[in-house]
């Protein structure tokens, strides 16, 4: 059953349909939140996200975005609120790039990460350590693209940025990852 069908069922009085949506997305939202805010706050934020979804479900417009994009926008906003309260960085804080990347910009996409590095990344602990050190913006794009398998267009909608900007950030994120692996 699609997300839109579940939403319709819920709107028609079938509460179990909403439970199915929670079951479907709680893991993704939890993982996304965990990577950005840490374990201690993830559960509370996930709960807050689903309560917001429940309260605003009538405002969801399937013609504007998919439910997945919509729920990730809510998650992003909840995380931003949390980070603001903690006076940490938020999603719109753009890292200032230095000129070190000028050489790397010329590398073809498929060669950004050599096989040896990709092999190293298969170690989940190693990858999570790298992600922890990565800037919020880059980390978010990589998680949404590779863990949630969202397109650059969907990520752009989620983070309210143009698709080309997301593509550019993605490339820079991979380069940052590459630099981090090299220096390790």
């Amino acid at each position, binding site marked *: 059953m699609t997300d839109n069908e579940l939403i319709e069922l819920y709107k*028609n*009085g079938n*509460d*179990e349909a909403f439970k199915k949506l*929670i079951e479907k997305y709680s893991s993704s939202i939890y993982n996304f939140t965990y990577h950005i805010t840490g374990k201690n706050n993830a559960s509370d934020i996930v*709960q807050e996200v689903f309560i917001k979804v429940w309260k605003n479900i009538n405002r969801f417009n399937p013609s504007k975005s998919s439910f997945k994009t919509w729920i990730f926008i809510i998650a992003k906003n909840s995380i931003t609120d949390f980070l603001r309260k903690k006076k940490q960085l938020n999603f719109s804080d753009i890292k200032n790039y230095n000129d070190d990347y000028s050489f790397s910009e010329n590398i073809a996409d498929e060669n950004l990460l050599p096989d040896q590095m990709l092999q190293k990344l*298969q170690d989940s602990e190693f990858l*999570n350590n790298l992600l922890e050190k990565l800037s919020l913006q880059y980390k978010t794009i990589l998680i949404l693209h*590779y863990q949630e398998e969202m397109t650059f267009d969907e990520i752009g909608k989620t983070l309210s940025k143009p698709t080309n900007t997301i593509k550019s950030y993605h490339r820079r994120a991979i380069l940052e990852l590459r630099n981090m692996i090299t220096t390790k």
Partner: protein
Amino acid sequence: MEKELIKAFNNAKYQLDTNLTENIWHTIIKREKHIKRFKLSIFSIIGISSLAGMIPAFNMLLKDFSQSGFYEYVSLLFNGNALSTYWKELTLSLAESLPTINIILSLSLVFVFFLSVRFVAKQIINNKYVGKAYIA
């Protein structure tokens, strides 16, 4: 590269606390029941108030009907000769003698009462099915 990265990132996924989904669901159900109970009490108060308001409103309406001479004009309607000769004047007088404001007030109270009864019934039914799979 894409496939390897997807594989690597999926390996690095954090596992969800098994109780979290149930906790979220129970919190939502609790809040939904709370909101429905709140709506139920509000509509009950409105329903009871409109029912109580109907008594003086109808008393006033009956009083206005008798003071305006409405009953007299109605009795003239049953007098065949008067109706055929002065039907225009009689209809106008009958319309003028209607206590319009009180009629509107009384009908509004009746409308509000039935509307709140409908909402209360709806809330009771919905509250019974909160968290359930299907409403028959």
